[in-house]
């Protein structure tokens, strides 16, 4: 599998999603560990803009050659943007999961509490090693 990249400054969920807070918006994607495990991502679908979600709600799916995985939002709120580039180029998640492979942006409704439930890079590293 090779080395797993974990970026400082992001927060991580046990479902292998990452969260980056940009002003009053939370950007969400899946981690390097997740894209590595899925391998060859062939299809991504995220719920529509305007969908209101609670933390840990299912809000989309990722298909790889081998399996289908649900996406959950670690942050409650309203989806305000979906990365539509992934429709035609889902492999972007394999290539750049923390950058161009971001999945959706949320206008948070309970940000502080949701962030407090997530792991920092060191804690996430320990988490995937223990899995």
């Amino acid at each position, binding site marked *: 599998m090779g080395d797993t990249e974990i970026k400082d400054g992001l927060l991580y969920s046990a479902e292998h999603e990452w969260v980056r807070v940009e002003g009053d918006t939370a950007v969400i994607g899946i981690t390097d560990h997740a894209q590595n495990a899925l*391998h*060859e991502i062939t*299809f991504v679908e995220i719920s529509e803009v305007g969908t209101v979600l609670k933390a840990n709600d299912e809000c989309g*799916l990722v*298909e790889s*050659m*081998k399996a289908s995985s649900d996406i959950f939002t670690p942050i409650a709120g309203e989806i305000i943007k979906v990365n539509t580039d992934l429709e035609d180029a889902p492999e972007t998640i394999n290539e750049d999961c923390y950058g161009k492979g971001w999945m959706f942006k949320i206008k948070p409704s309970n940000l502080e509490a949701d962030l407090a439930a997530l792991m920092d890079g060191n804690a996430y590293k320990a988490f995937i090693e223990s899995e």
Partner: protein
Amino acid sequence: MLERTQIYEWHKEHGDLVDFVGWEMPVRFSDIREEHMAVREAVGIFDTSNMFRFFIKGSQAREFLQSITTNNVSNLDINGGQYTTCLNEAGGIHDDLMLYRISEDEYIWITNADNGPKIRDHLLTHSKGFDVEVLDRTKEIAMIAVQGPKALSLLGKMSGKDMNEFGRFTCNPLTIAGYDTYLCRTGYTGEAGAEVLVLNCSKSDEGKKRAIGFWKELLDQGAEYHIKPCGLGARDSTRLEAGFVLYGHELDEETSPIEAKIPYAVKFKVEPHYIGYDAVQSHKKEGVKKTRIGFVMIDRGIPREKYPILFNGSEIGMTTSGGLSPTLDKGIGMGYVPPDTIDIGDVIEIDIKGRHRRAEVTKWPFYDPDKYGETRTR
């Protein structure tokens, strides 16, 4: 403790391993799509040593085998082979298998990995009263599938034989690059090729070295044909694209071969009648409750097994397999619906985790048979 094939040490070094029905097997060596396209356009090799290989010998071997399998065993000449099924009393499928006749009174039965122990018990139970001996030689023989439009060129080069001598479904002893084998002219990808039984490959260090030696010889000599080692991911995607049934998905104890639409595996002018004969005969004559269909997605989305199938807004069945077809770059799948509810060309919907997506009912294989597959024309 997971079981391992004779070639495991090589897989561990070069592939990503997964637990597959109790066997530690490679899911991929590079990318599943690359491996898949190597099989469609060049040649790929699969370690299928986890399948079970039973040798059945004796003066009543034919009668015994006919009493438990659905194809016509009498049609098998020496060095012939056939795809067949083994049924329960109700006509449900115990397993699907390849049966080869290797001498006057000896046959090889090759069965699915996860059904191996069940079939071994079945053979031992039902062989009582017949003059026949059943030997499980799974652990003495490695099995490698060599598949793709260049597969026979490669095996011809390695054996020094003209592969045209060996017709489809035959099984012949053949020395390939110094290794004693049975060359079975069969496969599970839709492409030309063979499944090679490599003899004298026990799970001793020497046996493993031999099996890995043959595997590496294929890769070395196949380099000029752009050969790729392939894992279970490509094995599933190639069989799905060919429209082949897989036990545990399209086949199970509740499904008959008539329902599964594999009528070529079932014959009725046979003696003795096999277990399940009356049940499948009634399926054939009086009809079935469900029938297998194939479909290609019209909308975006990838079908998987156990997704509801809808027609005119009502749920009519369930999918049994699904995935992305690399040659079509679309989702494809198979499933069961009641007979006479839909036709080829009808538009159905697949419930993909709550999202209803349109698909067209089609024939299999799903790939373009002019461009791909054993009977390709270009």
